[in-house]
């Protein structure tokens, strides 16, 4: 087949890019080679638009064993233990087929983690849907949630935390980000870098079918009206096979037979083989006749570009094939030597004794295009909202509006569909600031949370970027964990648009600043561009997934009030920042102005002081303040316990709505025993912490003097109604 412009475009390549391909090859590629270039050079694999910005992120620290660049990041949690984690997007496939899209998203991220030698111990997800009233939303929500559950439950890894948000910006482009966390031994981490000549390249796992051919290009292409018609062969997840693959790989990893291992993710066999070879500075030769195929008459093109799930590529030490095969036989999985490492520095593809494709590895990897795309700074609206000019409402009504809104409703409808307890190490499940997972057989635990704030990022990307890192850090701190490192999933619109590219650059600037200041490095991540339809881009939605350490396990801190008549303290300064608040959005449909300012010094100080208090057992319960402000936080502490609270009216601040609903950062609400007040205050003063004693807990009622009195059982009902009636 002669390659023409149409074919080039169909492969998602620009004509200039095709010219570079010819230059690199010093000839015209054949169709197979073109397909391989298109897979490797698209945004998803090459990071061509994002790379120069990603380079700015802090990725180092004493806690970091492996930063970005491998299948997942690795951090040190003391003793011989390491935690391996990463987040990844599966947005476009999930919009087309929500169940399978979400399921295979979970499957893919799990492989990234167990490829590195870690047993997965927790799953998280961040899912964003369009407006609840949009016709597609309900079935997408249903499909995505049961897909996530379907995969995680079957494979037997608890899904312990996440976030679920609705915003019309996602009407035609939902976000499904899945994060996996695994536990490994520090000295038993496996990498993808190939080493040595003439080593066997082994294919293990499921057979290759015509699944998602060009899925990687699809993931990087904008939707248009026809995309529902295009219907690429959807990848179907097979969690059962993944479970077998995971057990088999972990079993093989017990001895020293693996040189390098890499899962087949986006762009399947192509990207996995190229990645191993390029990292090792080697060539690789594949005999495609050997590839286990599910369908008859599959072509080299199809084999190289198939995105069939539950497959891995392994490079083995000499003479280990037999032993290794035994393990895969035991688990009823294919195990086939399909090639070897070479010194040619080429990817060489043979089929029926003929070379059907030959490409220099570096042309696919290091010489892939790199763009410094134009970007523009955001011109943020600095509008101030004057609450007094708005229609008068009662605090109670405003609070009910928030607690019963889709975004703030209790998520049990979702989380009850996930097995959160399997593996018997889940100490704290969904519903708290962060989930807490014990390290098996150990007296320590990790805390995990994922967070995003698209509205903040839209209105002022730098602040928004900083804010999510802080919120994530705060969520871990609130359960008594020392935050260690993050992974991030950067969901943005079309990078060829300079405003979108600006949102990207500035969000990253904010993330970088916060991570640097908090010593909270980025160890892995994923970029998803082209989220949008017909030139309508989604709001910038970077998602942060954080991992923290609880060194010595006692009962972790949860956020429900524990006792009657204990003291409630607000940590951090309240300015009453009401712009971009949930209060204005839910009650007045106003989304305007700047997000709350982020003060990294206060953030760090307040959080570290809170950890000190926790380590001296002075805290009964704690909850960070985020969307919805102080009163929403207090309500959440009340509605899951039998205790309410009696809160004083603010003395200084003029406007009571700004005080109770403002979303100023770096704040927490804590509950302490009366008798401990002097000790706690002393620690606050020593550490220069601004705090206010705002009230006490009491039985059954949440109360603000003269303003509000509401039964906690009613609060619970209000908070649960929306999902149950949706």
């Amino acid at each position: 087949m002669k390659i023409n412009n149409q074919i080039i475009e169909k492969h998602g390549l620009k004509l200039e890019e095709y010219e570079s391909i010819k230059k690199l090859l010093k000839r015209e590629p054949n169709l197979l080679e073109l397909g391989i270039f298109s897979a490797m050079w698209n945004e998803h694999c090459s990071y061509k638009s994002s790379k120069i910005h990603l380079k700015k992120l802090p990725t180092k620290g004493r806690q970091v064993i492996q930063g970005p660049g491998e299948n997942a990041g690795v951090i040190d949690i003391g003793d011989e233990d390491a935690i391996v984690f990463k987040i990844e997007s599966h947005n476009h496939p999930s919009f087309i087929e929500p169940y399978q899209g979400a399921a295979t998203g979970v499957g893919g991220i799990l492989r990234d983690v167990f490829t590195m030698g870690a047993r997965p111990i927790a799953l998280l997800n961040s899912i964003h849907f369009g407006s609840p009233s949009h016709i597609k939303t309900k079935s997408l929500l249903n499909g995505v949630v049961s897909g996530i559950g379907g995969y995680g439950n079957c494979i037997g890894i608890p899904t312990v935390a996440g976030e679920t948000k609705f915003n019309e910006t996602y009407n035609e482009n939902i976000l499904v980000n899945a994060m996996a966390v695994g536990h490994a031994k520090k000295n038993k981490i496996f990498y993808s870098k190939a080493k040595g000549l003439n080593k066997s390249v082994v294919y293990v796992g499921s057979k290759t079918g015509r699944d998602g051919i060009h899925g990687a290009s699809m993931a990087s292409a904008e939707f248009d009206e026809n995309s529902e018609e295009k219907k690429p062969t959807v990848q179907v997840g097979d969690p059962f096979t993944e479970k077998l693959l995971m057990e088999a790989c972990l079993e093989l990893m017990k001895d020293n037979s693996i040189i390098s291992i890499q899962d087949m993710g986006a762009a399947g066999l192509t990207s996995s083989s190229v990645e191993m070879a390029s990292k090792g500075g080697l060539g690789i030769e594949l005999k495609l006749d050997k590839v286990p195929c599910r369908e008859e008459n599959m072509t080299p093109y199809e084999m190289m570009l198939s995105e069939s799930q539950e497959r891995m590529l392994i490079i083995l030490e000499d003479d280990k094939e037999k032993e290794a095969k035994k393990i895969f036989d035991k688990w009823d999985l294919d195990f086939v030597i399909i090639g070897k490492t070479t010194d040619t520095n080429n990817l060489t593809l043979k089929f029926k004794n003929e070379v059907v494709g030959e490409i220099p590895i570096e042309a696919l990897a290091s010489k892939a295009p790199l763009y410094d795309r134009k970007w523009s700074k955001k011109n943020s609206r600095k509008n101030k909202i004057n609450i007094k000019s708005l229609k008068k409402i009662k605090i109670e009504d405003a609070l009910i509006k928030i607690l019963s809104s889709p975004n703030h409703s209790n998520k049990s409808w979702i989380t009850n569909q996930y097995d959160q307890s399997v593996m018997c190490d889940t100490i704290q499940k969904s519903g708290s600031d962060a989930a807490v997972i014990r390290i098996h057989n150990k007296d320590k635990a990790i805390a995990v949370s994922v967070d995003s704030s698209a509205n903040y990022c839209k209105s002022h990307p730098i602040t928004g970027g900083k804010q999510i890192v802080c919120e994530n850090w705060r969520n871990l701190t609130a359960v008594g964990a020392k935050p260690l490192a993050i992974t991030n999933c950067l969901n943005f619109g079309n990078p060829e648009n300079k405003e979108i590219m600006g949102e990207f650059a500035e969000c990253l600037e904010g993330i970088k600043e916060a991570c640097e200041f908090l010593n909270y490095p980025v160890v892995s991540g994923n970029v998803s561009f082209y989220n949008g339809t017909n030139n309508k881009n989604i709001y910038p939605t970077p998602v942060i997934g954080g991992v923290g350490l609880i060194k010595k396990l006692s009962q972790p801190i949860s956020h429900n009030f524990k006792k009657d008549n204990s003291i409630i303290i607000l940590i951090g300064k309240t300015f009453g920042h009401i712009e971009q608040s949930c209060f204005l959005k839910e009650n007045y449909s106003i989304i305007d102005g700047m997000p709350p300012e982020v003060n990294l010094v206060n953030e760090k100080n307040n959080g570290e002081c809170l950890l000190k208090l926790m380590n001296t057992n002075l805290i009964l319960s704690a909850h960070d303040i985020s969307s919805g402000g102080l009163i929403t936080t207090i309500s959440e502490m009340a509605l899951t316990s039998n205790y309410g609270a009696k809160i004083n009216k603010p003395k200084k601040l003029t406007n009571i709505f700004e005080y109770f609903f403002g979303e100023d950062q770096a704040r927490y609400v804590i509950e302490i025993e009366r008798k401990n007040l002097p000790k706690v205050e002393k620690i606050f003063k020593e550490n220069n912490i601004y705090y206010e004693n705002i009230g006490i807990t009491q039985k059954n009622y949440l109360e603000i003097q003269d303003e509000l009195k509401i039964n906690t059982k009613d609060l619970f009902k209000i908070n649960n109604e929306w999902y149950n009636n949706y």
Partner: protein
Amino acid sequence: MKSSVIVFPGSNCDRDIAVALEKMQFKNTMVWHKETKLPKSDLIVIPGGFSYGDYLRSGAIAGKSLIINEVIKAANSGCLILGICNGFQILTETGLLKGTLLRNKNLKFINKDVHIKVINNNSKFSKKYNENQILKINIAHNEGNYFTDPEHLIKLQDENLIVFKYCDEDGNINEKSNPNGSINNIAGILNSKKNILGMMPHPERMVDEIISNKDGVNLFSSLLN
């Protein structure tokens, strides 16, 4: 006491039950499904999970495995058998327990802590509980909706073969406290000879205070002689 835990491809609560058994001082052995001999054991546990992906019908394919013949032999000679969740489904598929487990009435996977009432504390599996004791225990399943024919249901009642029923916090057994649609709120049953217990809730998840509670402990200690 010696116990064996049968491991199928796709079992995923096998480690959890092994940890619980060892914590309760059982001497436990894991048995891979392809094996044809069972080690000598006083208790055989078929754990939860998704054996063979729960494809076809949950428990159906595991019910055809080699080792199951040995389990059936052991059961017939009076060995104690405990099937939890997927294990219960496998036991009904092999016919060791009657009835079947259909999809949950809401067609969704359900994971949460529910309450169950000890209906019969006169069995080897439940003797350490009090009659009518209310336990809080975790369930996690897609197909836990127990169904059986009217005659068998009568038999279950007459011969006191129902060990656990779903109830609410105060012990009320009704439709509202029935999480999955099981007939008569049944959560766990015995065979006529009372040496086989199948139950959907997960007692192995309830043996550690820091994780949950200890309401599952007495099931295991009942089995220790």
